[in-house]
């Protein structure tokens, strides 16, 4: 299997991640295309000393940061973190409301969303995701804990005690 083949098998996951991260179809496809262009041009850099997938996600995230940086001053994508209101439903349903979850993901700070999607959606281990994000595992862990907690609050999941009090 050549590096190009391996890159190709990763495209569906890259698209899924980019869409979930950017929440904008066109922007996500552009980002994936950018990422692929870079990966193809730099594929000699990949030496088999790690999975191609992690390398591609790195490129994708780096590319996204570049784009964001150069767009500073023009478009501002500032997620809301401070003004989190708990959602209304407070039960213990087997499933979360998908619209609520999608909306809540959009309100997570970018770094938390990027981290959570790597482990929760793409199934990466802490070690792998930390490498992709180029942050220490400890930083990633606390980022994930914050993301999960915020998500829980925004999708109406208070701790058991709160639930009792509210009822």
């Amino acid at each position, binding site marked *: 299997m050549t590096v190009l083949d391996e890159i190709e098998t990763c495209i569906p*996951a890259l*698209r899924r991640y980019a869409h979930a991260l950017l929440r904008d179809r066109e922007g996500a496809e552009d980002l994936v295309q950018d990422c692929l262009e870079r990966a193809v041009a730099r594929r*000699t850099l990949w030496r088999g000393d790690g999975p191609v997938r992690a390398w591609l996600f790195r490129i994708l995230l780096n590319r996204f940061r570049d784009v964001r940086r150069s767009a500073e001053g023009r478009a501002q994508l500032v997620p809301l973190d401070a003004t989190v209101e708990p959602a209304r439903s407070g039960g213990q349903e087997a*499933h979360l409301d998908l619209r609520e979850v999608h909306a809540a993901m959009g309100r997570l700070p970018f770094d938390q969303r990027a981290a959570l999607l790597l482990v929760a959606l793409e199934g990466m281990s802490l070690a792998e995701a930390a490498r992709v994000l180029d942050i220490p595992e400890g930083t990633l862990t606390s980022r994930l804990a914050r993301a999960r907690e915020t998500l829980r609050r925004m999708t109406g999941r208070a701790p058991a005690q709160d639930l009792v009090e509210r009822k």
Partner: protein
Amino acid sequence: MSDNLPIDDEALIRLRHGEPADREKLADLLAADPSLRERLAEWDRQDAALATLYNPLADEPVPARHQDLLAAAARAPGWRFRWPERIAAAMAFLAIGTVAGWFAALHQMPGPAEADLATEAMRAYATYSVEVLHPVEVPASAASHLESWLSKRVGRPITPPDLSGNGFRLLGGRVLPDSQGTAALMLYENDLGQRLALYVAPAPAGVETAFRFAQSGAAQGFWWVDNRLGCALVGDLPHDALRKLSLSAYDQIDQT
């Protein structure tokens, strides 16, 4: 709870998304603690919701433009396609330690101007790697400015290589006078505070050398001249680590 201390979310995350052994440990803890199970169940619900929301995107057909790009790369007979083999060959030779002979056969020996490169790079490293307040003129946070500024001053496209795979993060760069014109100095640092200097200066046409090793005190480095650019990577690091970093830098500079 089986432990004396309650398990906080971060500890739980380390177990849930850690290595297989961590997950086994988590399974044991869960068996003994119903409240833990409920906390984990909430995260399972989150993950299930994310999968339901976003997995369909991965099942869609891949847009033609993505496929075309890869197909074009696979077909391309150009230099980009041949380079991987050349680099792989170069690495193999480096690995078995015959690089000197191989390159000596392929390339002319360096003249004094190229050998100066190593000296200049060592000097720049000695001066700036110890600088606490102003190691660089333009920080890595201004990446696009740094890139265009260095490229403009050196007169060649310069993209600071990404050495983060080897633990080194770009601090930024500066320009310096060099016997061949204007040189770019890029400084990198790892988590241990060790610094690396990548020195890039214009080189005369027709000169090519492969990796050469230079040493001055504790600092040592590899340097090479290729494609009208002279490059030197200098640091106070073990020989093998430096060589790996140099190869990575070499590959990336070669792509620009």
